[in-house]
C-alpha cells in the first residue's frame, strides 16, 4: 500500500445559478476591486488515503465524488493527486 494525498474540487456546473458567488462578486465590487467578471463558489476536500496504486486511488476518489462528495445533478468535480 502506498500513501496518497489528493485534492478534490467541487464546483457548480455551468448554467446553475450560484447566488453565493453572485453575492461575493458584488461584495468584491463594493471593496473597489475592478474587473471581476464573475465569481463561482466551490468546495475543496483534501483527502489522505492508502491505496495499492495511484490508479486504485483515483478510482476510489472518483467513486467518493460520485457517491457523496459531489451532487452530480448540480456539481462537477475534479480529482488531483499530489
Amino acid at each position, binding site marked *: 500500500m502506498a500513501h496518497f494525498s489528493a485534492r478534490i474540487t467541487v464546483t457548480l456546473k455551468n448554467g*446553475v445559478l450560484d*447566488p453565493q458567488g453572485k453575492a461575493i462578486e458584488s461584495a468584491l465590487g463594493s471593496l473597489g476591486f475592478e474587473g471581476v467578471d464573475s465569481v463561482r463558489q466551490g468546495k475543496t476536500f483534501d483527502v489522505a488515503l492508502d491505496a495499492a496504486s495511484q490508479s486504485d486511488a483515483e478510482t476510489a476518489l472518483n467513486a467518493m465524488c460520485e457517491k457523496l*462528495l459531489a*451532487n452530480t*445533478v*448540480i456539481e462537477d468535480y475534479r480529482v488531483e493527486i499530489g
Partner: protein
Amino acid sequence: MKTTIALFPGSNRDRDMIAAVGKISGEASTLVWHTSTELPESDLIILPGGFSHGDYLRAGAIAARAPIMQAIAKAAADGVRVLGVCNGFQTLTEAGLLPGALMRNAGLNFVCKMVQLEVTNAASPFTNRYNAGDVIDCPVAHHDGNFFADSDTLARLEDDGLVAFRYANGTNPNGSINDIAGILNPAGNVLGMMPHPENRIEAAHGGDDGRRLFEAAMNVLESEAA
C-alpha cells in the same frame, strides 16, 4: 394505516409530524432511528424537517446515505407511501428517490413565512383530497429550498404531471425553478415538498389547509379541525 417517522441526528420537525399524525389519524407513529437497517411494517413513511447532520456537505446529503435509507428505498419501490417535508425532501433528492436538487435560496436568506401553494396534481395518494387548481396556505421555513433540475428532467416532471405543488400568486420564496414547491415520483407514492403541511392542520395554526394531505396519505375520513 401504520405510519413510521424516520429520525436523523438534527431532525427537528419530528414532534410536529408525530402531533399531526396523531391528531389526524388518532394513531401513534412508530419512530425509527437512521442507523436501523430495517423498517417496521409501514403504510406511510415520513422524513421530517430539520437540519440532519447540521446540513454538513449539502442539506440532506449525509442523511441520504444512512442505513435506513436503503430500507426506505426498497419500501418505496414496493409502493409504500413516502413523504419527505423540507429536510426530508432534500434527503429524498440526495438519495435519488426524487429527481433534481434543492439549492441555496436565491435571496440567500433563511425564509420563514406563509406562502400560497397551487395544487397542480390532485390525483396522487397525497393530494387527492384537493382539487387541481386549489390554492392553499402553507408555511415554509428553510435555507435551501431552491429546486433545480436540468432541462430534460424538468420537462419530464412537467409533461408527466409530477409537479404536485407550485408556489402561487408570486409567493415563491426561494427562486425555485417553475415555482416548484413539491414533486412526485412517477409511481406517485413518493412526495417531497419544502412547505410544512404539518404546521397547518388546526385552528391554532391559523388554518387547516394541510390537513387534507395527511387525511389522504393515511386514508382517514375528512374531519373538522379541532
